[in-house]
């Protein structure tokens, strides 16, 4: 797998990302990512604004056509398929959990969770811990077929750890690598490798 493809893939997952973001999610050397990004910008495959990068539209099409070719073996790997299937079965559970994190039920209607009820929040973070323990097997299966995916497991565990320590932004804040951000990025990563469309 060449660096140009991987870095473009990283940009497709981490939109509007810095070189550090891309290197972090792919587990690549930062210098390599910087050089590759510079080449992509020079070749008009990526656009840079204020240190953040976006794929150019033509590069997106190019990238999309890469997946069918480059990941045939991965898709045929039974461990990867099993891990992916488990991920898709876990995904609605996490979405439900995040919805309950962000909204509370008041007389049958959902209202925004203002996080003033520490007990409510603690219960959801507990459930997130339970969820993570159950997801570990699937994450391991994915990493056994695509070693760089080990990063997701480690980063998810790190986000959970911070949330459990009381830094609750690490549950679902979209601006940081919160549990939900990472789970969503992993989903995006998997959908691209599997060449599937997101449901909603």
């Amino acid at each position, binding site marked *: 797998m060449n660096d140009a493809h991987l870095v473009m893939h990283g940009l497709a997952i981490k939109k509007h990302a810095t070189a550090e973001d891309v290197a972090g999610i792919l587990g690549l050397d930062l210098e390599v990512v910087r050089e590759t990004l510079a080449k992509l910008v020079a070749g008009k495959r990526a656009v840079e604004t204020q240190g953040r990068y976006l794929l150019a539209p033509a590069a997106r099409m190019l990238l999309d056509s890469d997946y069918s070719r480059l990941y045939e073996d991965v898709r045929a790997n039974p461990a990867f398929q099993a891990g992916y299937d488990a991920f898709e079965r876990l995904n609605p559970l996490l979405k439900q959990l995040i919805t309950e994190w962000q909204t509370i039920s008041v*007389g049958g209607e959902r*209202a925004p969770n203002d996080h003033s009820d520490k007990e409510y929040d603690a219960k959801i973070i*507990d459930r997130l811990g*339970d969820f993570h323990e159950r*997801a*570990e097997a699937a994450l391991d299966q994915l990493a056994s077929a695509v070693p760089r995916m080990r990063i997701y497991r480690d980063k998810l565990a790190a986000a959970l750890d911070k949330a*459990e320590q009381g830094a609750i932004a690490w549950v*679902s804040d979209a601006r940081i690598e919160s549990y939900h951000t990472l789970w969503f990025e992993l989903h995006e990563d998997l959908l691209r490798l599997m060449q599937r469309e*997101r449901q*909603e």
Partner: protein
Amino acid sequence: MTVAFGQWTLGLDGEGEPQRALIGGKAWSLARMQALGLNAPPAFVVTTAACRAYLASGEPPAGLNDEIEAAIAWLESKTGRRFGAGPRPLLVSVRSGAPVSMPGMMDTVLNLGVNDATEAALAAECGDAAFARNTHKRFLDLYAHIVLRASAPDFDPAKEPAAWRDAIRASCGAEVPADPREQLRGALRAVFESWNSRRARRYRQHNHIPDDLGTAVTVQAMAFGNLDRRSGTGVLFSRNPSTGAPEPYGEYLPRAQGEDVVSGKFTPQPLSALAAEMPKVHAELLEAARKLERASRDVQDVEFTIERGRLYFLQARVAKLAPQAAARIAVALVREGLIDEKAALRRLTPDQARLLLSPRICEAALKNAELLAAGEAASPGVGIGVVVGDSDEAERRARAGEAVILARPTTSPDDLHGMIAARAVVTEQGGSTSHAAVVGRALGLACVVGCGKGALQSLAGRLVTVDGRAGKIYAGALAVETPDENEDEALATLAAWAAKHAPLRVVAASSPEAADAVDLSTNEDAADPDKIGAVLGRLQGARGARGGAVASDQGVRAALRAGLEFIVAETVLPPLLAAIRAADAASLAEEVGGA
């Protein structure tokens, strides 16, 4: 007294006062409910002492199995059902219960006792084979997840229990026992072992909770709300949790189980339906709600099931209230003599007060407003701007100073930068768990989702107003108003009480005293809640401050630390409530520090 089956097991029968340390928090609240004369499904408890013995030796203590046999026989005689056999099978729930609640403890397993034979008996008893099958499936699902810790077995709903059992075996290599007594032993072991789970150990360490308390296990008969016409299930609030009106409010679903109400698959009926069908049960329910409310001095949320005309209380807890209801009820409870003013002021959070006083579209403007699209209200707030259909464009135009509304068929992480830049986000597809809804709430953005395919394309370039609370998108920039806290009876009362009890004065911008305040509105650091503490700390000889983030929770805490006499705010209630909470937290910290 509670019924003792020996050294390790107690039956809860509403008598005596079993120790919380022995039976755990959940059984203890069950016993309290019984003590108030409320009828709960019969239950027994395997005590924390048994857990300690198990953890010490790795084996269930001698005699426990015999005691459990006796306890099951007791449940059977109380319910007229048989554990593991027809014609009327007894199913139970199994839950963990430590003396203090903590993370990592085992979740509740429902419907334990079901297997192929009891499923058939249950189907015959209730005349509903689909229900019996679903009961079986739910049990297998819960047992696999909770007891066997299977990752995510593939449960094809079209298949049979044998196939579900195969899927569980494939997922984790272990079997769900068919023998109900084996099931119960497995669940007991899982509860005991959850005491030493990673999360539980860590929580105890962090909170200095001794490692040798142990957890109890509550085994409770399942009540069936779907046996006949005189069966059903529902929830009751002792007051209306949305409006705060002082009448009980509830939903009732005849011939159904508890999870049906929560699932949203069925439309429940109002409580009046129950009053018409079973007036005595209805009266008993309302009386219980009153009792619970008086005993706890707060609004109660009660789950109940009616089995063949007999009312069972499954759970009672303090109700979650909408902000408006929280304000009205806090005032009402003081007037009724149930709580004092100080307690009332802690029943409404500063954020709830801010939400109640946040800008909204004027009633008058709504009357003539042209509705362009409507969807599901996913995140409250009002956003006004020009509709943009692309996230890159949204970001570019927002950076140039334009107010934009991001409209997408759906959103994905591709759109995050556009969402951050937008004043509101609207989508054509997806519900309250979709990416747009989840991220919109996280960003505190007004958000409307699921407006319908193609509903938004034509709006590009138009100026619109998005009402995230109502799920509507209107043409043009509608007038927005900020509610007046003096015009709402409950809020005005709370503000007057808060002024009396808060350690800081908050004055309205229109008050003459406001002129004496140091104005921080041009200080950039003062706009940042994380930096305002340093700004206020540097003020020399100031009596009051205004502007920036001074009225936020952090600003109020900083003002107290800096020894200010007053702050100036648009609405006085939220900062007053924040000041009261800050003083509470400070005195708590002092107590802990002094101890």
